[in-house]
């Protein structure tokens, strides 16, 4: 009935005596199977495709003018490394699927096909290898994430130097208030001047005290790479050191009612001199 046949059993060759460890020997033996090599090849192609998409994604990420701070640059670096580390497993998964359709073959038809596939109940080597690989991957993600989060938190809160030449600089405090549907920025140390646009000097750490007058908003300075909820009745903190001149976006990233889509403003990163004259113009007192 069926024209398909069992795959021919591999040709048995006499084992050459060897001193290599059995695991490595088994691995090389496995790699001699044609499908193993092809799957690894397809995985490689897929990994390259992922990396190409990653490159495009990073380009898109910075297409609106960023990165404008060390945090944002760090985010891009993280994305690159996490993808590079995760892609081999993803590549292997996709390659197995592709090869199973085009390599191990397929049958159509309405009748259930003959039982002709190998009866593999489990394979300790494969299971152990997979668990090891995914655990190593998860472990890498955890370690990378924890270390980086600690670093970013320290940088954001002004406990590490803004840049190596200047060393520690006193941070500028900014009180950010979200309200349906406008942002207000107050500089408590600079004569309590208030503004609807955030103006920051370049290379100075800035410390934000974020709160809300009504519902939950989310203060997102897009190209600066910082984001924190503005909660009513609580003050949340974040911080950043902008390192690029220009005008960037601030958006609300938490649905806050009728005009949520329109709750936007700008952040202008200017030189220290421009910042000082802006503060004077706004009627601010002492500048730091």
């Amino acid at each position: 009935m069926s024209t398909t046949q069992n795959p021919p059993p591999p040709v048995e060759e006499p084992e050459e005596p060897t001193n290599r460890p059995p695991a490595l020997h088994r691995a090389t033996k496995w790699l001699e199977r044609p499908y193993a090599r092809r799957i690894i090849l397809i995985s490689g192609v897929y990994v390259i495709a992922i990396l190409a998409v990653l490159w495009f994604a990073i380009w898109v990420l910075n297409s609106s003018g960023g990165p404008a701070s060390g945090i944002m640059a760090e985010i891009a670096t993280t994305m690159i490394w996490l993808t590079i580390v995760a892609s081999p497993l993803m590549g292997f998964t996709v390659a197995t699927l592709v090869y199973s359709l085009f390599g191990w073959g397929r049958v159509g038809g309405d009748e259930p096909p003959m039982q002709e596939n190998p009866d593999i109940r489990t394979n300790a080597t494969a299971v152990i290898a997979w668990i090891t690989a995914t655990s190593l991957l998860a472990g890498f993600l955890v370690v990378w994430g924890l270390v980086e989060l600690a670093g970013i938190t320290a940088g954001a809160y002004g406990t590490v130097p803004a840049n190596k030449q200047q060393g520690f600089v006193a941070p500028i405090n900014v009180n950010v208030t979200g309200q349906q549907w406008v942002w207000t920025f107050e500089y408590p140390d600079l004569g309590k001047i208030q503004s609807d646009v955030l103006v920051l000097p370049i290379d100075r750490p800035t410390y934000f005290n974020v709160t809300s007058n009504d519902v939950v908003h989310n203060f997102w300075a897009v190209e600066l790479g910082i984001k924190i909820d503005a909660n009513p009745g609580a003050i949340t903190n974040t911080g950043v050191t902008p390192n690029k001149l220009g005008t960037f976006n601030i958006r609300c990233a938490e649905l806050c009612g009728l005009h949520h889509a329109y709750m936007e403003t700008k952040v202008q990163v200017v030189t220290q001199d421009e910042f000082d004259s802006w503060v004077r113009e706004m009627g601010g007192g002492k500048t730091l």
Partner: protein
Amino acid sequence: MKRALFTVLSVVIGVLVVGGSVALFSAGAQEPDPIAAKVVGKAKTPQGELPHAELDLSIYPNSSPAVPPPAVSDRLAQSESESQQWPFYTPSTNLELPAHSLVTIRITQYDSGGQIYNPYLAKVVGTVDGSATYDGEKKTGIDPNTVGHTFTIHQFPESTQPYLYVNIPVPMNGANAPTDANGYPKDPHVIEFSFITGEPGQYIWNCEFPCGTGYVFFGGPMQQRGWMSGTVTVV
């Protein structure tokens, strides 16, 4: 063949269902017809001589036989009896302003008020000389404890159009002010302010004074276009 025909037919039915729902819901909340600012001549401004346009708006504390509520047919709205107690801007909340012009808006305010949460919004921001005329008197801000409403134009999420932010606090009428037959103050506040428009663009405005219902008084009329919020189109 018949199968294919019916397959296509079911896709058509799907499109009709979606199209019908879109039509139903986009017509479900009619906003007031836009009003355009009238160009009345030329005016000297810090940016040279520009066309000068004017617009009149009024704020009422509630609707009455003399002052009908805004022409909003919002199927998602609260009941009518409740919305009669809502304050609103009239004659329309959708404003059309000419580009590259000096725009003067006069607001006649009949409503009461109280304390505003954010004192910054009791300051005049974004007008030609940073001030507005309150009943004939130039001011750069009002007492945050006696605010009635605000008229706050802010940014549309469009980075290519010029940034526009105008905030005009509108003072409240005292509780003991003499009223007319409909319960509105006989002697309302009149606020006049001017600002300069740039390139054509889309903006949003709303009131920032807590004058609605519900939590922190930002529900009801504050959450519905046509009452205390609307659009500004610079054409």
